[in-house]
């Protein structure tokens, strides 16, 4: 990511700015832009600073508050978590000395060999496979419709935001009302109602939770897309239309590339939040039936807090973090490459 060579940074940066090629080609109302973008010779001293700190050392100053905060507040607990994962550890009252021997990868092999951990990660896979594509498609299409709609836009915007801000106890009560064995959905389905019913069915419970989370967080992602869509100049879209493109083609040629960075963000965020799915199985099923809705975060809670095995929980946590970061890196590489 931080290539020390300034020129390589340059190319990456150009690639990292996806509004680049497509928009530059069109007549974007930016004064003097391309004329000034060219590189100019700089004094030698600046060169040295640049080699050591990068072209804009000011960036270091701007990120410093964030970095320092992370190091002060998160590095200790997180470093502690890493340490725990490699030791035989449990929490004790201060002043108590209990031996905590180093156990190498024992905690990792133990949790990886455990059926619960495997199930939790499998469930997470199911969750992501449903949640992420559905989130992108629904959020983008609703945001696009919302952006084009002129009437009642305040009403629509507010209504999509409502599930996102409503506390889970309330929204989950509604889903139970809809999807319980004798609930509205099964009434409507009649003889087609699944047996065992949704929440007691080990094949349906995780998809149902994925659907619920998608629905609940949709307002958040719609807001992200909306803010981005407002930055896509209407003229571009209209220009494409007058060039004889159909609406769908215009959408694909103009809107989709323009919001690509946000799509990348939406994927990244839904990936990361997926990794932390906890409240829903915690409140709805406790991980059941028979582990079918167990998630890694719930497992961390159960092992670490309820069962007093923070070392095992930390190992699961590190596996989860590694997996999520790998996926995040892949998605970012794919989405932000030109």
């Amino acid at each position, binding site marked *: *990511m*931080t290539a*020390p060579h300034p020129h390589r940074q340059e190319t990456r940066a150009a690639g990292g700015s996806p509004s680049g090629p497509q928009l530059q080609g069109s007549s974007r109302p930016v004064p003097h832009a391309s004329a000034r973008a060219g590189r100019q010779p700089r004094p030698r001293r600046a060169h040295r600073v640049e080699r050591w700190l990068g072209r804009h050392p000011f960036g270091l100053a701007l990120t410093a508050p964030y970095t320092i905060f992370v*190091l002060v507040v998160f*590095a*200790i607990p*997180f*470093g*502690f978590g*890493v*340490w725990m994962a490699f030791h035989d550890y*449990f*929490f*004790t*009252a*201060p*002043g*108590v*000395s*209990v031996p*905590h021997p180093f156990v190498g990868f024992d905690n990792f092999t133990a949790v990886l060999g455990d059926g619960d951990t495997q199930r939790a990660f499998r469930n997470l896979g199911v969750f992501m496979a449903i949640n992420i594509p559905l989130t992108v498609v629904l959020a983008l299409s609703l945001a696009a419709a919302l952006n084009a709609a002129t009437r009642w836009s305040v009403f629509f915007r507010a209504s999509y935001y409502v599930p996102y801000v409503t506390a889970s106890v309330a929204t989950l*009560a509604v889903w*139970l*009302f809809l999807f*319980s*064995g*004798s609930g509205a959905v099964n009434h409507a389905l009649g003889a087609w109602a699944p047996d*065992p*019913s949704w*929440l*007691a069915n080990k094949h349906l419970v995780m998809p149902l939770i994925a659907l619920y989370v998608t629905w609940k967080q949709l307002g958040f992602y719609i807001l992200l897309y909306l803010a981005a869509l407002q930055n896509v100049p209407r003229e571009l879209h209209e220009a494409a239309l007058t060039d004889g493109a159909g609406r769908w083609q215009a959408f694909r040629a103009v809107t989709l590339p323009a919001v690509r960075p946000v799509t990348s963000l939406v994927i990244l965020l839904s990936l990361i939040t997926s990794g932390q799915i906890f409240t829903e199985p915690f409140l*709805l*099923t*406790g*991980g*059941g*039936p*028979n*582990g079918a809705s167990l998630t890694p975060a719930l497992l961390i809670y*159960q092992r670490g*807090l*309820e*069962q*007093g095995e923070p070392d095992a929980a930390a190992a699961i946590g590190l596996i989860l973090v590694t997996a999520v970061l790998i996926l995040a890196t892949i998605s970012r590489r794919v989405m932000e490459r030109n």
Partner: protein
Amino acid sequence: MKRHTRIAVLVTAAAVVLPLSACGSDDSSGGKPTAGPIDIWYSTNEQEQAWAKTVVDAWNTEHPEEKVTARAVPAGKSTEDVIGAAITAGNTPCLVYNTAPAAVSAFEKQRGLVNLSKTFKDAESFIEQRSGDAVDGFRSPDGSLYQMPWKTNPFMLYYNKDVFAKAGLDAEHPKLRTYDDVLAAAKAIKSAKAADFALYPPATSDYTNSLFDFYPLYLANSGGTQLVEDGKATFTGEAGLQTLGFWQQMYAEGYSSPEAYSGDMWAGPFSDGVAAMGIAGPWGKGQFDGKVEFGVVPLPTAAGAEETSTFADSKNVGMFTSCRNQQTAWDFAKFSMSKENDAALLEETGQFPTRTDVTTVAAGFLKENPFYEPFADAVPRAVDVPNIPGSSQVWTTFRKAWDDTVLSGKGDVKDAFGAAAQTIDDQANG
């Protein structure tokens, strides 16, 4: 370069981490317990708050030098996590009223609880005199007491009189002595569509839920055998298999629901009229009054017994090692469990102090409230969870087998729980 920086970050992190684990030296250990101001936590339940306020006020007027500061902390699932975190941080209060016996072994492992037997000369005599044989159920494996038995809420079977009448069953003296009786009643209720379900215990996979379905009935059926005794799982015996078989049938026939309840999953199904019967302690009255017409019978057993054991659902008092003035804490604990204060607890909250002489202490109250009599009778036969290391792992293992074969209504109970028993034997021995 990048990699180096990352390693550097980790090393720095590790360096700052060590103090967290190694920091030692203070408060808890050594010396004679001292007197002075203390903190306590009690439950936010309104009736209990009223009781606690009176007791604390009475104490504070008499002991201005040893003031008690009391705070209401909700008694819920997360409370145990909060106490666990507070032990680690060293900021637990002196006393927590409402310590769940199931959590004691974990707190003890953290070295968060004071060994009462060894710290206070009169601890054994005071506690034994007040609670009698019940005390032994709360002893830790080392034989000491790390908790003071405080109150007992024996579970009974509540039934909805209107539903029973609608199903053509006897609403005043229902026949609910044996498992077959209950199944027959359930059948009648279902075919008459008198209620959606016969019994609806919490159905999520939380390990604590076994205390609301299997365990009370098992204690009744086995004459008070705890889940684990002498380091061995006991539920694969005949009594256990009978209880498991009964529940499996309840789910297989659709008399019970394997789904989470929308609402309060403990009291909700019965008080909303969704379930015809409910298993609950004396506190049930406060929650069901005015919502359904109910009666109470002892828990059923396979063969039908005269006097049955039941689950005690005890809440005890724990003293925490971070307490600086342990002498005051102990004196206050004794004060709060005096005859008068115990009687006040019963009158205020409808919950029974864990006393051998509960029927005498409560005589006046029971005369005015005959409803509570069967509960008072059951107090001496009420049994709680075993105090064993790895308690929560043990219950989790049990609950998994339950999910697998009982909630689903199919599968071989004997095989599934035989395997669970083997795992539990290992877990219970640390």
